């Protein structure tokens, strides 16, 4: 009895495998007879989707690189270098609205330059080494740095 059941199960499994094989063959034959245009369309859709995914990530990375913190660092270092190379009696103005974003505040304290860009408050600042006294004042739509 047991032997009979085992034989039956074995033949059922063989049949199942055969059916599966035939299904696979059928699927492959369907693929083979697909028109070239269909394949081309699918490849195009793929390329567009992959391009979109990469574009999203590229823009996200570009946003990070052009972030407020980078602009702030550029402005602080440029200002510090300007102060370093300035002679006594020089003054220079920094427009509040500029290509590097809107400057909210420029501060000079304890030998460091602090710039607040688009609401991002400066934390570290950048040191300058001028032997002159440096001060900053707000004047209309610009900040004026005086080296005396």
């Amino acid at each position, binding site marked *: 009895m047991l032997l009979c059941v085992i034989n039956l199960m074995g033949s059922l499994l063989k049949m199942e495998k055969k059916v599966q094989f035939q299904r696979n063959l059928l*699927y492959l034959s*369907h*693929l083979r007879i*697909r028109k070239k245009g269909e394949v081309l369309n699918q490849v195009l859709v793929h390329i567009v989707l992959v391009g979109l995914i990469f574009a*999203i*990530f590229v823009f*996200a990375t570009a946003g990070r690189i052009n972030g407020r913190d980078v602009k702030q660092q550029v402005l602080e270092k440029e200002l510090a270098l300007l102060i*370093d*190379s300035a002679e006594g009696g020089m003054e220079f103005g920094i427009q509040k609205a500029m290509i590097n974003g809107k400057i909210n505040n420029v501060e000079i304290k304890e030998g460091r330059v602090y710039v607040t860009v688009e609401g991002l408050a400066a934390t570290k600042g950048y040191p300058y*080494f001028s032997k002159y006294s440096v001060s900053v004042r707000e004047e209309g739509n610009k900040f004026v740095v005086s080296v005396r």
Partner: protein
Amino acid sequence: MISKRGAMGEGVFMIYRLLLVSVIAFAIFGISSIFYAYEIEVRDSEAVILTRQVSECLSPDGVFNLDLISEDSQKSILSYCGLSNERFYVGVEVLNEAGDVIAEFSQGDSGSGWVRKLTQGAGQYDPGYRIFEYPVLIGQGISEIEGKIKMEVIVSHEF
């Protein structure tokens, strides 16, 4: 035309491929944006400015008067010029016509120069380091001789 089952299978396969592409893109751009160091290097410019300031301080109009610099100032040449900063090292050698050193001044962390010499052969970019030589008239007492000033400037990293 493909069967419904085949179309569904391909759709699932496409989702899988797009997911894979998204994961790869995220890995490339995500990780690179996390580790992207946006440190802008200005130490070279600082070294140039510092060299100019010190040379103007020591030899205005191209005349260097040795008598003006006291012995205390010889080890604090930056303070003498009013430019003291813990990130800087300045070493000045005053040479006569024959090339002999007749006076030496310095200030700052000379250890940074030692570290620089250690890593010199590594082929690394070496920002903030400058050697500058220029001719001067050296005045000592009532005599004036021709010579030159050799200046070594190191600007350390701002942490």
